[in-house]
Each structure stands twice: as structure tokens, then as C-alpha cells.
């Protein structure tokens, strides 16, 4: 078939949904309905590949699938379903995958209605001029209110919801209608198949046999096996060895032309060479302009990662190297802590990203980690006019050298039922938030806009938001830049020694309170030692809080076990095992939880 003819039969779309609103289940149903997967292959939620993703019910790595669908008009269409990650940490990836589509299914839970996360992604989709097809999911729930939700979609988003599909992915209701609407409403891609190649990278994946597998969408031109390609942001060139698509099984093809979605393999060794959002072009006939919207992703949150057993330092480095192969947004650099020894300062897109990496290192590589509390990047303007980016509180220069400090701010959009508006506003206020706007979505719900320091979001904002609103509030945020703040570095001393890994940066107004709360918390977390251990919080040389961990008075087994030595051993082994999980700092054994304790101190108590 002629490339231009073929173009008319292609529909590229993705699914936008809030976590739990049924995106993965719907994707599975679509795969099933179009016969892409046999029943035997239908494990639940096929697209969420990683074990962790399944456990947490979220998508981290993107997937795309090429499906064949015979529509009611008798024609066979090629549908490319591009999955999007479902978490605010990955909103840039979401925007790039939306860019690869012409349409999107907006899945809204028939009982819960529109959430902040959904809204944010809908705006992203609208920015990319996507055709949005509303789908009201879970209509079989007793609490479903499809009419109310339709109204909400019209009022809040301003979309015509009169033709919204009433569906239940779980029960398989409405799947055909969804596909019909995709064929009917989502525009076929346009573009010149003979123009110089421009393809958008929306994900990549490292395969140990083939190297990097690049997921991309051809916007103009054609990519073929044997072609020499160039990454427009880095200028690096590679030769294409494989072209294909996932159906969802990988299938090799001769070429991918305008409008098509698929993968290429080109002997690329490092995912960092295939940056999400970058444009692939023909090295011999390059396009003049890259596709718009590319941005180098920079980590928002940093933490120190140290092996509990210092002899595992090399193993940790290898683990990070391996994870980095598949994760272009993970950064790491060696660092040293006087308390924790040799480790790495790692950068992440957000807290979820950090937790995922941490868990994967512990689980897949079997390395026990001590991680320090996450920190944002502060801009420190020194009196000599220089500016430092401080991502590790320990490296904060002494106060006399600091002119002023700036911290990153986000614009947070919080969607919340009326009854909780007061609570949420109070929370935002207590987290140093600046009120921007408040919009009534309907008679029941409000969208609050605040500017908040990112550090507060990293701290415990989300948990408090959820607990303060019985889980009804939803949050989305985007980085808006840096603002000056009155910040100080707080040190924690154990047994009179500063533990660098426990230092943190805090707003001066709450320094006293947080310092006191933290030493109380540490007193509970650090097990008693054979000697008394003072725990102190200090700003500069000034001690602002002190607690004492009482000494353990005895630890002896004055019991008769007769000849049962195995019991004695088990007891001692347990004791020894417990110690292994701790880091010995000076002569004090400190458990991992202590390093995260700063995150668990409640400012309001």
C-alpha cells in the first residue's frame, strides 16, 4: 500500500486516567478485544511489565502496542496504543507520549469524577491538540453517577461529554464503542513521507542483547533498516539494524513511515543517548528543525545512598550502572560521608522514583541500603557573588559566606471536596504555601492553586493532604522556578559528634520546632546502647534541642536452656542480624529509619 494511503488507516492514541481509575484494565481489554493477545497470554494488566509496577498498580516504563482493528465500516485500521505513566513524577514523559498521538481516551471513574492528576494530563493533551474521547468507566459500580460525571467533564474541562462512552473495563462493557470512536474521531496522522526523517523518541529500553531499543513515532519521512540516523540534541549518529513494532510481541518490519509508532534498534549502548523528547533524523539528509518541546530532564530530588555493609560499595555502583541503562532520568555521583562512608548522591524525578530505585537495588541486587533523607536543590548565593547548587545539605557553606538562599517552588493544583477546603488551605499555609487561586468545579468540589516550596512536597505534604481529607484530595504540581527563602542548615549530633548524613535544610521559622521533634523521634528510633547517648539538634554552634537515649543496663541470658544450644544461638543470631541492619556511627549503632526520621516529624504537633 502506498504510504499516503496507509496513513489514513492509522490511529494513534493514549489513555489518560487517574491512578485507580482503570487505565490498565481498559488497555488489557482493548488488547483482548482486538485479538492481540490470546487468552492464555492474558495475564492481568499486560502492559505493566515490571513486578514493582504490578505491585504498586502504577506504570513506570512506557509501552506501546500496534493493534489491528476491523471497524464497523468494514475497513481494517492500525491502532497504536501508547501507554503513559500515571504519576506526577513522570509528567514530562507523559507530555512526550501524548505528543506522539492524535487522540486520547480520557478515563474518568464513574463514582469519583475528575481528579487533579487527570486534569493536569488533559491540559497536556489539549496543548498537543489531541482529540479527547471521554470514557466514563466503572459504570457497573453501585455508586456510579455517570450523569454527574458527564456534567463535571463539561464544566471542569469544557469538553463535550454528550457522546462519552459508558464503560466498564472490568466487565468488558463499552469496549467496541471506544474503538469505534477512536476510528471515527481521532484524526489520521498527517505529514510528508518523503520529507527528511523526523521521529519523536518517547521512551527507550535497554536490552542486554540488542542494546537500546528506542520507542518512537515517525512524524515526517521514513525510517528503514540500514539507515544512518542522528539524534538531534546530541548529534550522535547510529546505524539502524532493526525496525519494528510491538503487537505486543515484537515484530520486525521493513520500515516505519509517517504516522507510525514502533521501535528501532541501532547499536546504541546507553539510554542517555536516546533522550525522551529528542528528534531522530536522517544523518545523510537531516531535517533542519527538531520537533518542538524537547527538554533535558533534570532530577528534582536527591538523596545519598550508602551500602550498610561498606564492602558492598562496588556492588552498589554496579547496580546503579545497570539501572541507569534503563533509566535516563537517574543520576548518581560518588560521595563520601564521614558518618556513612563511601556512597553515591543520586538524583531522581521525584519521591516515587526514588523509592522505586531504592527498592529495586535492595530487591534485585540484594544490597542493603542506608538512604539519607531526600533533599531538593538549593541555590546558594555567596557573598563573593558566586552561586552554588546545593543538593546535599552537608555541603551548605557556613552562614557568614551566604548572601541568600533560594529554593525551588512548585505550582500545586489540589482538587478537594468542599468540606475539606479549610483543612487544605490551613495545610498549605503551614507548609509555607502562597495562595494563588480557587475555582469551584461544581457545587461539591474546588480546585485550589497554591505555590509551595518543593521541599515541603518532598517532606510530608502529600501524606498530610491525604490523611487530612480522608484520601479525597488529589494533587498535581509543576516546577515554576526558584524563590528566595530564609533557610538554615540544621545539624544533628549523636554523642557529641555531628552526623553529616542527618543534616537538613529548614526554614528558620520552623527550625526550632522541627529540631526538637526530630531529636525526640531519634530517641525513639535509635536503640539503647551500652552507654548514654545524647541526641542534639544544632544550628551553627547553637544547640536548640537535646534528648538523651538512656543506656541499656544489661543484656544477658540468665536462663537455663539445658543442652539446647540452638535456641541460644538463634537468639544471638537475631541480635547480630539486627545489628547488621544498622550503621555504626562513631560507637553508636543507628538504624536506617533514623536517616528518614526527618521526613516523619509532624510540624503541626
Amino acid at each position, binding site marked *: 500500500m502506498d504510504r499516503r494511503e496507509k496513513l489514513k488507516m492509522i490511529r494513534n492514541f493514549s489513555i489518560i486516567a487517574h491512578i485507580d481509575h482503570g487505565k490498565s484494565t481498559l488497555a488489557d481489554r482493548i488488547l483482548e478485544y482486538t485479538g492481540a493477545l490470546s487468552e492464555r497470554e492474558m495475564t492481568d494488566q499486560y502492559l505493566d511489565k515490571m513486578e514493582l509496577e504490578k505491585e504498586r498498580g502504577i506504570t513506570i516504563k512506557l509501552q506501546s502496542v500496534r493493534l489491528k482493528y476491523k471497524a464497523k465500516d468494514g475497513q481494517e485500521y492500525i491502532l497504536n496504543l501508547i501507554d503513559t505513566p500515571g504519576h506526577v513524577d513522570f509528567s514530562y514523559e507523559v507530555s512526550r507520549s501524548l505528543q506522539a498521538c492524535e487522540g486520547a481516551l480520557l478515563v474518568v471513574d464513574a463514582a469519583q469524577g475528575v481528579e487533579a492528576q487527570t486534569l493536569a494530563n488533559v491540559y497536556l493533551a489539549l496543548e498537543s491538540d489531541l482529540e479527547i474521547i471521554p470514557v466514563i468507566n466503572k459504570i457497573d459500580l453501585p455508586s456510579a453517577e455517570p450523569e454527574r460525571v458527564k456534567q463535571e467533564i463539561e464544566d471542569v474541562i469544557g469538553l463535550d461529554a454528550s457522546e462519552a462512552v459508558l464503560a466498564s473495563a472490568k466487565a468488558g462493557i463499552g469496549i467496541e464503542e471506544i474503538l469505534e470512536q477512536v476510528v471515527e474521531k481521532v484524526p489520521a496522522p498527517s505529514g510528508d513521507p518523503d520529507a527528511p526523517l523526523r521521529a519523536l523518541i518517547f521512551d527507550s529500553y535497554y536490552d542486554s542483547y540488542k542494546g537500546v531499543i528506542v520507542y518512537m513515532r515517525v512524524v515526517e519521512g521514513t525510517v528503514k533498516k540500514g539507515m544512518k540516523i542522528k539524534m538531534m540534541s546530541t548529534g550522535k549518529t547510529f546505524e539502524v539494524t532493526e525496525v519494528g513494532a510491538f503487537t505486543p510481541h515484537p515484530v520486525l518490519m521493513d520500515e516505519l513511515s509517517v504516522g507510525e509508532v514502533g521501535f528501532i534498534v541501532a547499536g546504541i549502548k546507553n539510554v542517555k543517548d536516546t533522550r525522551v523528547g529528542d528528534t531522530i533524523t536522517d544523518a545523510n539528509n537531516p531535517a533542519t528543525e527538531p520537533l518542538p518541546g524537547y527538554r533535558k530532564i533534570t532530577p528534582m530530588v536527591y538523596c545519598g545512598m550508602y551500602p550498610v555493609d561498606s564492602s558492598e560499595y562496588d556492588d552498589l555502583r554496579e547496580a546503579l550502572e545497570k539501572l541507569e541503562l534503563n533509566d535516563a532520568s537517574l543520576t548518581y555521583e560518588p560521595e563520601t560521608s564521614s558518618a556513612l562512608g563511601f556512597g553515591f548522591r543520586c538524583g531522581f524525578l521525584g519521591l516515587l522514583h526514588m523509592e522505586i530505585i531504592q527498592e529495586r537495588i535492595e530487591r534485585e541486587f540484594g544490597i542493603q541500603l542506608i538512604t539519607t533523607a531526600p533533599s531538593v536543590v538549593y541555590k546558594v548565593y555567596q557573598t563573593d557573588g558566586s552561586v552554588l547548587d546545593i543538593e546535599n545539605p552537608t555541603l551548605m557553606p557556613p552562614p557568614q559566606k551566604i548572601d541568600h538562599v533560594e529554593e525551588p517552588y512548585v505550582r500545586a493544583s489540589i482538587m478537594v471536596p468542599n468540606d475539606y477546603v479549610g483543612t487544605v488551605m490551613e495545610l498549605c499555609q503551614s507548609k509555607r504555601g502562597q495562595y494563588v487561586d480557587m475555582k469551584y468545579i461544581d457545587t461539591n468540589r474546588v480546585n485550589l492553586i497554591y505555590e509551595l516550596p518543593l521541599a515541603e512536597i518532598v517532606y510530608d505534604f502529600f501524606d498530610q493532604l491525604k490523611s487530612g481529607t480522608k484520601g479525597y484530595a488529589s494533587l498535581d504540581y509543576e516546577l515554576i522556578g526558584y524563590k528566595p527563602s530564609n533557610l538554615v542548615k540544621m545539624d544533628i549530633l549523636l554523642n557529641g559528634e555531628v552526623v553529616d548524613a542527618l543534616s537538613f535544610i529548614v526554614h528558620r521559622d520552623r527550625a526550632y520546632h522541627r529540631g526538637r521533634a526530630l531529636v525526640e523521634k531519634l530517641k525513639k528510633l535509635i536503640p539503647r546502647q551500652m552507654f548514654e547517648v545524647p541526641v542534639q539538634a544544632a544550628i551553627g554552634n547553637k544547640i536548640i534541642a537535646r534528648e538523651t537515649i538512656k543506656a541499656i543496663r544489661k*543484656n544477658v541470658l540468665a536462663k537455663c536452656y539445658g543442652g539446647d*544450644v540452638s535456641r541460644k*544461638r538463634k537468639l544471638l543470631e537475631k541480635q547480630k542480624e539486627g545489628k547488621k541492619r544498622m550503621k555504626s556511627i562513631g560507637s553508636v549503632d543507628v538504624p536506617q529509619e533514623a536517616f528518614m526520621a526527618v521526613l516523619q516529624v509532624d510540624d503541626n504537633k
Partner: protein
Amino acid sequence: MAPKAVYIHIPFCTNKCHYCDFTAYVVDGQPVEDYLAALEREMELTVAEVPPGEIETVFIGGGTPTVLNPQQMERLLLSIRTYFPHWSNEWEFTIEANPGTTGEELLEVMQAGGVNRISFGAQTFRPDLLQKIGRIHGVEDIYRSVEQARSVGFDNISLDLMFGLPHQTLQDVQKTLIEALKLEPDHFSCYSLKIEEGTLFHHLYERNELPLPPEEEELAMYQWIRSNLPRYGYIQYEISNFSKPGKESRHNSIYWLNEEYYGLGAGAHGYMNKVRHANVKGVKEYIHQVQHGKRPVLERHEVNAQEEMENFMILGLRMLKGVSCTRFYSLYHKRIEEVYGSVIERLVEQGMLTVQDDRIALTEKGLIYGNEVFASFLI
């Protein structure tokens, strides 16, 4: 070399104490006769595998071995004589007994059967406390039983005492000890209460309904016992054990020296030919297995060289005289410093161990933090 010690478990009691998690069943309705027959059969099966040499110590523990009636006791003692016929001239043969369970006839049977040491589970001399921990004997029973045993001719009597009991104060411990001293026993075992899973105490403890003395007070109890018993001529020779000179428990010393022993009966542990084993716990299962000609072993664990050295240390250091470096070398053909040099150095630095001539031993501080020391010796 064949084990020189025999442990025999009698898993029956008149009642179950609130803190006890040993293999012990209330005796009413239990197949005691069948059990004794099975024990005899187990001895036969065991000595066929590991023929005994000269036996130095025998220990019948429980449970409460003295719930056996005189005929049953006679039978048990006879079977021991039958299957372990050669005894050293200086044998030590201990039976554990509860105050109030040793009638004159039983005592005479015991003596005739070779028993020469009785360990009475006195626990405390505060009557209401005895009741609270689930003991059924009274203070009077302790006096009477000890006197009776003496009148029959037993001249090696030990008392078990417990401290750190719920509701117990330092003063209680002092009073108990003063009362106990009046009986002039030859040996004291002073154990601290440990809350074990599956006991009534554990259940109460979980619900926060067990008023245990604070740690400081429990420590004070231990220290008071330790510092006062020597004034009455008792030497502390192990973390929990005190004796008149020459009256140390030789059977327990075999455990602490990491030497081998036969272990017979339901729930018993044994150590033969470098294999440690635990027997099945249920009385019926025990009987069943033995009747089918099988040694009733639940778990079997071959002790490797490293573990042997670890056990040597964690058991040996319980004794106040500590471990002998030359004995270590003669057993394992490695110098102790080679294996544990850095550990010992660190513990000496921390003030937990002393090294003197051939011996390494706990210091006063090491005694209190014994588990820290022992755990360091696990590789």
C-alpha cells in the same frame, strides 16, 4: 569418643507454670507407663548406634521427673543402669524435683537407683508470688522437702530461684535469698525470668498486663545476688550458678565445655558424634516412633568446624573462669587469636573480656552484657 553425660527428659508436670515453654504436659491422663517403655526402647536404639563408655553424669529433667510414682521411678532408674552400665566412681546423678513432690519412698528409690543430687525448683519464698507464677507448692513445701531429702541421706542439694518476676521487688529477692540460705543448700541456680512465646506470661505481656520490674531493678536483683552469695561461701562459677566449693554442677559444665551428651526423651536435645539433635516433642508421637524402631529425632544438625568453635566460645564464656586457649588449640588445631583475634581485642578494649595467661573470661561488665559478647563470636 562416646559422650560421658546422659540427659533424660520427663515431660510431665502436675500443672503448667505461667512462664514455662519447655516440653511439659500435665500428667493426668498421660500414658506414663508407655512413655517409660518408649524411653527404654530409645536408650536401646541409641546405645546400639553410639555405644556408651564410662558415664560421669546423668541428669533427669523436665517437666517434673518426681511426678513419677516410686515404681515408675524405679523402672526408669533401672533402665538407665541397664543401657548405661559403666559409671565413673565419681558420678553425679541429678534429678529435678518440685518441692512437695518427693515423698520418702520416692526419695529412697532414687537413692537406691544411684541419684546423688536433687535440684529443687523453689523459685521464690514469697507465697503469693509462687501462686502468681503458677507454682503449686507453698513455702512450707520447700523446707519440708529439703529436710526430708537430707534425712534420707542426700548431701548435694541445689535450689533454683527466679528473679525479675512480675510484682517482684529487690526486697523480695533479698528476703527470698535470706530464707533460702537458712536451708544451706550446696548450690544455687538463679535465673531471670524470660518471657517466652506461647506462655500465659507472654500473652499478658503482649496486652501490657504483666507488671515486670524495671530493668534497673532487675539488674539490681542480679547484682545483689552476685555480691551477697559469696559472703555465705557460694562461689559464682557461671552466669546463673553458684556453689559451695566442689559442688558445681558437673553435668551442666559438660554443656558449657561444649562436650557431647546423650539426650533422651520427648523434646530432649542431644549431641553425639558432632551431630546435635532435637527429639520430637509430642508424647504420643514420641512413643509411636520409638515403637516402630526409629529414634524419635525431629531435627538433626551436623555441627561444622566453625560452628563448633563458636559454640565453644559462647558456651565456655558463660563460666566465670572462661575458656582455655590451649584447650581451644588442642580441639581445633588453630590458635584462638587466629580465629577470634580482632573480636577479642575489641571486646577487651570495650572492657568486656579479660585475657589472663591461658584463659579468656568475662569481666564484670561482660557478665552484664553477655549477649553482646557472645553474639560477637558468631562468625
